[in-house]
């Protein structure tokens, strides 16, 4: 997928929200978009999702199946969580078993009977993520996916992003929490002053390894939790150290 010479503004004669944007989104890549509030991150995500048309420039090669989770899930709808997700599964033409899978993975089974307007912010956010993931997207757009989520759900989202990229999908997310930074192949872009620029990795302080002994069956969950916290877990067994998958 490629964005070439993109300019965007909402009204004629308004200042450019985005200007001179050139991006190559290769299959398997995870793009983290950062920047100050109001800098145009959500606008960039909407352009990539195909919701906004560039004023100038082109967006080519967008994958067919796009999952989009907005920053604020629209909870003011007269449905229960289960009813809403059933409708979305039908719209996406996916089997309803996908609902069970994602409500289980995001630990929101207990919310299924609740009405959307009654949900807490974090619970509503999970519904927004579930609907975006139901369709098995080749392009996943997540606008602040980790905001208000519990640790387990954050870990699950990080694992899911990694899995989508591993199978050749593209993930683009704005992320103030930095939960994606420990994933491999994450490219960071900063939106500032209408421009989108790649960010170089900053030199960090010295690295310290901390070992934890635990049963093998719990290792991947702990690794996911640590990734969600911004750490880089390494799993070791029988004196052999290898990077966690």
């Amino acid at each position: 997928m490629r964005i070439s010479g993109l300019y965007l503004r909402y009204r004629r004669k308004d200042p450019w929200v985005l200007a001179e944007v050139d991006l190559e989104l290769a299959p398997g890549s995870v793009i983290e978009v950062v920047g100050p509030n109001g800098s145009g991150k959500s606008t960039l995500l909407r352009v990539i999702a195909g919701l906004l048309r560039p004023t100038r420039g082109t967006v080519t090669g967008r994958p067919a199946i796009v999952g989009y989770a907005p920053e604020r899930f629209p909870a003011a709808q007269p449905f229960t969580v289960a009813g809403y997700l059933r409708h979305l599964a039908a719209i996406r033409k996916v089997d309803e078993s996908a609902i069970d899978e994602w409500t289980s993975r995001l630990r929101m089974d207990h919310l299924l009977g609740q009405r959307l307007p009654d949900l807490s912010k974090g619970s509503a956010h999970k519904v927004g993520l579930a609907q975006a993931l139901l369709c098995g997207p080749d392009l996943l757009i997540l606008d602040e996916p980790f905001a208000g989520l519990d640790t387990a759900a954050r870990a699950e989202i990080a694992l899911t992003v990694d899995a989508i990229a591993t199978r050749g999908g593209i993930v683009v997310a704005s992320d103030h929490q930095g939960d994606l930074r420990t994933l491999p192949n994450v490219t960071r872009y900063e939106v500032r002053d209408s421009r989108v620029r790649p960010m170089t990795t900053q030199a960090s302080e010295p690295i310290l390894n901390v070992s934890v002994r635990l049963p093998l069956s719990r290792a991947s969950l702990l690794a996911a939790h640590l990734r969600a916290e911004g750490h880089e877990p390494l799993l070791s067994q029988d004196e052999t150290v290898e990077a966690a998958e």
Partner: protein
Amino acid sequence: MIALTRFRIAGYARSHRAFQPLLLLLVVISLLYATGVPVGNELSSYADSAAILIPAFAWAARGLLDTEPDEQRMIALTAVGRAELASGLLAALACNTILALIALVWPLAGGFAAIPPVGTLATGIGLHALAVLAGTVIGALTSRAILPSPAISIVALIGGYFAILMAGSSSVWATFPAMTWMHAANHGDLATRLPAIVVSATVWIGLGLLGYAGLRRTRP
């Protein structure tokens, strides 16, 4: 697209918005048929009903499209692409068809002195179909995706309807021909003017749909 249409109708039906245009329609047709319609005047009554109910159909279409939050509309756009537009219009048409059926059946049950001939019924159905299409287009053009301000939107809806009535009195081609069909039905020459009315109505509805599709290209 059908699943999205079903989702939108379900959302609209569960909201209180559906009652507002329904109540307006019930008030209008109960007033229209309150004194009864003598034999031979059924066609002019149907013509008046169809033209007068256009704002109710527009209100219903606007209400249906605006029931869905903006972010949900964007989710729908990523799911089905441009078919999202057609889905919204189809959902509005389905709801307005129910309103039009009420308007058509009501006088048969209690307004007309006698059941009118089939030709009159068919013309009445046709005029209400044109009114439903026009109302749906006006509702879409004044929906939140196009006009985010509720105040401007309702002024545009009512103002647009009055503009249609005012401009329509001069020529069948000047605007959507609701005024023309009311005038023709009340003067007994609807049958001769019907072809021009249908063509003009189709052209104006087509232009409205093109306008809506064009505006939505930059207003997701």
